[in-house]
């Protein structure tokens, strides 16, 4: 089991000093996935006031660090291709903290790049996994089908109408945030409850507007020691707490469809950081689907099991609401290339450094970024603090 005392000593020993996206997000057929990795890397390093030659550790998912490092022309002395779905990049932040504190490296670069919409060479699924053997032959393939079955179970346990209303609230409030973010896919396109309820079924009970976007995008994060962070060009953000783990791969093996692994990683990250839920000014919660947000808020302990619908009611998570959530517009309305998790960290860092433009929160000292990967399979939670 995690040793919380040791983890608390680790808290704050590394800082995020740079974040960035690739130059263009959305429909970008003219760029390869590796081009998104490299553009984002250079943008994040520029944000940090650093260069590629400063980087001595590389973290990525979806791709191997072998390919990304080769493309970037760097020779990392610490390498981590942990790939457990879209949560991976949040987990990489924690791994970078540990590696820097242990002395393996000083400047960690986490990159992401994926052409979910335009990829000329999508990565084929491994036909040898149990998921491929037992689920795919029945058309249980890809995220919407699995998340729909989880959402249906939640509705059975906690009430269909109030769950439906909560999913609509999340879709609408997240869009309002996207309308404040010029990089968001739906920046210029507001939505309504009616549009939500009238959008087509993808996999009942999920409407189209319950589902994240499918885009081309990249992002990157630069992390270094607390000492070197003092020279950061645009300020830095402390990495205070972290938790990671997973309990299944295919949805049919999930122990409880309403309890994802955030149930463990949330409390661990908060305890390591020495903060309580009341201290959190911003929650960046991976929104592959509206249901993912609903269940994650409960799992993280912001409210109890089945209380999510009350927690998000009446646009409480929208701009101006009591509980700012997914202020970049989320995977639902900003961007979602397939493994979105890194963008939760990018936005949290921007808000904590006061660089979020029109959507900047007034008081943002502590943020939580929570990634969910696979089919509610893995989670990574980090707590970040302003300097």
């Amino acid at each position, binding site marked *: 089991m995690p040793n919380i005392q040791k983890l608390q000593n680790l808290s704050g020993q590394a800082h995020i000093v740079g974040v960035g996206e690739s130059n263009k997000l959305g429909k970008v057929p003219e760029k390869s996935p590796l081009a998104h990795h490299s553009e984002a890397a250079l943008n994040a390093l520029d944000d940090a006031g650093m260069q590629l030659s400063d980087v001595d550790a590389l973290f990525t998912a979806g791709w191997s660090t072998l390919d990304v490092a080769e493309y970037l022309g760097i020779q990392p002395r610490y390498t981590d291709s942990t790939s457990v779905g879209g949560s991976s990049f949040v987990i990489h932040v924690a791994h970078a903290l540990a590696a820097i504190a242990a002395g393996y490296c000083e400047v960690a670069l986490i990159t992401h790049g994926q052409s979910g919409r335009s990829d000329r060479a999508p990565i084929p699924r491994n036909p040898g996994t149990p998921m491929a*053997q037992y689920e795919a032959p029945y*058309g249980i393939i890809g995220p*919407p*089908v699995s998340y729909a079955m989880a959402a*249906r179970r939640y509705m059975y346990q906690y009430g269909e109408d109030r769950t439906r209303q909560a999913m609509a609230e999340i879709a609408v409030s997240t869009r309002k945030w996207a309308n404040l973010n010029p990089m968001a896919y739906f920046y210029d396109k507001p939505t309504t409850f009616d549009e939500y309820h009238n959008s087509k079924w993808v*996999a009942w009970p999920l409407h189209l507007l319950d589902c994240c976007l499918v885009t081309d995008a990249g992002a990157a994060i630069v992390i270094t020691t607390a000492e070197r962070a003092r020279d950061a060009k645009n300020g830095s953000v402390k990495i205070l707490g972290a938790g990671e783990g997973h309990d299944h791969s295919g949805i049919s093996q999930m122990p409880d469809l309403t309890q994802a692994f955030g149930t463990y990683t949330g409390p661990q990250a908060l305890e390591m950081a020495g903060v309580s839920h009341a201290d959190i000014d911003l929650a960046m919660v991976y929104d592959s689907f509206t249901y993912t947000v609903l269940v994650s808020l409960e799992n993280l302990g912001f409210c109890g099991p089945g209380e999510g619908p009350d927690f998000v009611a009446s646009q409480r998570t929208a701009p101006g609401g009591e509980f700012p959530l997914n202020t970049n517009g989320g995977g639902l309305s900003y961007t979602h290339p397939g493994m979105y998790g890194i963008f939760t960290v990018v936005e949290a860092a921007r808000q904590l450094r006061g660089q979020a433009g029109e959507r900047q929160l007034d008081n943002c000292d502590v943020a939580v970024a929570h990634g969910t990967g696979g089919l509610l399979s893995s989670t990574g939670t980090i707590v970040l603090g302003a300097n």
Partner: protein
Amino acid sequence: MTDTTPKPQPISQPESDRYWEGLKNEEIWLQRSKATGKYQFYPRTFSISDPETGSDGIEWVRASGKAELYTFAIVHVAPHMGFVGDVPYITALVQLEEDVIVPTNIVGVTPEPDALQIGMSLKAVFEHNEGGQTLLKFRPA
């Protein structure tokens, strides 16, 4: 768009040959731990409820084919070209009488939310396909 793309077929592994062979004979064979009495799905080389005894700790038992609906979805956008001609279709997780969850399809019922109730009784249907494989599906009992 074409309906002729084949559906993905199960590629049986050594530890699951008995399961898939059983379905061809319209029999459901599950693994059970000798020590704990717990069934498991899917087959492994040991019981996850009693790992230490290894392959000696498991036995194969024929299941009844009775189940209850645990959850479901109605798929409207085919996630794979092989299913384009099938939408809307019902995916489900069903709880077998032996207390294991199995991924499947519900057949013999209109693919509409009101036609399905979580907890409803189901019975096994063996669907033999052109590729010589048999899939385990369920219909209302």
